[in-house]
């Protein structure tokens, strides 16, 4: 009995974890934009290594691309797909800019995309909230 | 004394308190008329795996015939060599001589002592 469970559970887990719902995917998008923001905050205070910051920003961008395209493939009814797509693209562009300035160690120019990230974070939060409310 | 509770699976030590495995099995001689007697303590792979399932036991003894150090059969220790049955079971024999340490020695020679810093250099 127990032995069986030991084998079956990991197998099931390995084969298929549950697919996330659109609301969860939007939460995840907020989480990644927020991560990029927080990593940017810490870098501006010179408290994190450049490489880590750049990698984390790149990871955020990549996760946004993946999760975003999943959302767009089957968008919830309450979501304005076109607006979301536009916001997502600009956010990703911003984060890519931040990563580039980290690589160039240019804190001055870094501030501009970092600052506008706050607005995109709010936009994404709104999308996520409306999706949650629509459900 | 209870044979299963107090003897089976207990740790065996030799004359010099060297651990020599656990009691894998016990042999009992049954005759038509007389009282059954426990004659041997058995240590050894196949005996142990036989307790899980006969198939596993047979597989183990087949593998043992193909590969592995030292003697091929299970080790049988006559009951008369049992000195004390307490926390451990103390036997009046030498672990090395009866083959209880075959794997230990084989692994030491073939694997462990080939890795630097195993501590084998210091005694020789």
């Amino acid at each position, binding site marked *: 009995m127990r032995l069986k469970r030991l084998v079956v559970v990991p197998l099931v887990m390995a084969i298929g974890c549950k697919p996330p719902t659109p609301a969860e995917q939007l939460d995840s998008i907020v989480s990644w934009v927020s991560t990029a923001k927080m990593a940017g905050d810490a870098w501006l205070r010179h408290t994190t290594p450049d490489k880590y910051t750049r990698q984390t920003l790149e990871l955020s961008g990549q996760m946004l691309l993946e999760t975003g395209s999943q959302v767009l493939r089957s968008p919830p009814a309450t979501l304005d797909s076109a607006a979301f797509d536009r916001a997502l693209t600009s956010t990703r562009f911003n984060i890519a800019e931040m990563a580039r300035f980290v690589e160039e160690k240019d804190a001055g120019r870094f501030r501009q995309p970092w600052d506008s990230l706050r607005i995109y974070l709010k936009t994404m939060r709104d999308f996520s909230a409306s999706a949650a409310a629509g459900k | *004394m*209870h*044979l*299963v*509770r107090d003897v*089976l699976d207990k740790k065996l030590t030799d004359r010099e308190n060297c651990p020599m495995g656990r009691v*894998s*099995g*016990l*042999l*009992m*001689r*049954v*005759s*038509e008329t007389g*009282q*059954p*007697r*426990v*004659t041997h303590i*058995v240590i050894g792979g196949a*005996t142990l795996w*036989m*307790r899980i399932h006969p198939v596993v036991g047979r597989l183990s003894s087949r593998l043992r015939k193909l590969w592995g150090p030292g003697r091929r059969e299970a080790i049988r220790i006559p*009951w*008369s060599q*049992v000195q004390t*049955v307490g926390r451990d079971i103390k036997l009046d024999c030498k672990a090395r001589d009866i083959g209880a340490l075959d794997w230990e020695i084989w692994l030491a020679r073939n694997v462990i002592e080939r890795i630097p810093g195993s501590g084998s250099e210091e005694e020789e």
Partner: protein
Amino acid sequence: MDVHVELLLGTKVRDTDGNIVGRIEELRVDRDDNSCRVESYLIGASAVIERLSAWTLIRPVARALHAHKLYQVYDVRWQDMDLSDPARPKLRIARSDLRHVK
């Protein structure tokens, strides 16, 4: 004939009528200087409790539940056990002649 004690554990024992009495769970032995003689076999579910020495936990529970059946352990003397086929042990006596322990 040599019998493996460890394989005897858990085998079902039948009485003279062929009914199952229980499983062998423990062997009582008497040990002196250089021999070890089997005195009796303990049969029944509660013999496991005996073997695991778990009475301190089980007894209060059994008492609270009035589960007297839990105490049923048969103590079969060596004379009464037929081990000529170790895979199928048989009793030489009727079930009613068995004695309880505890």
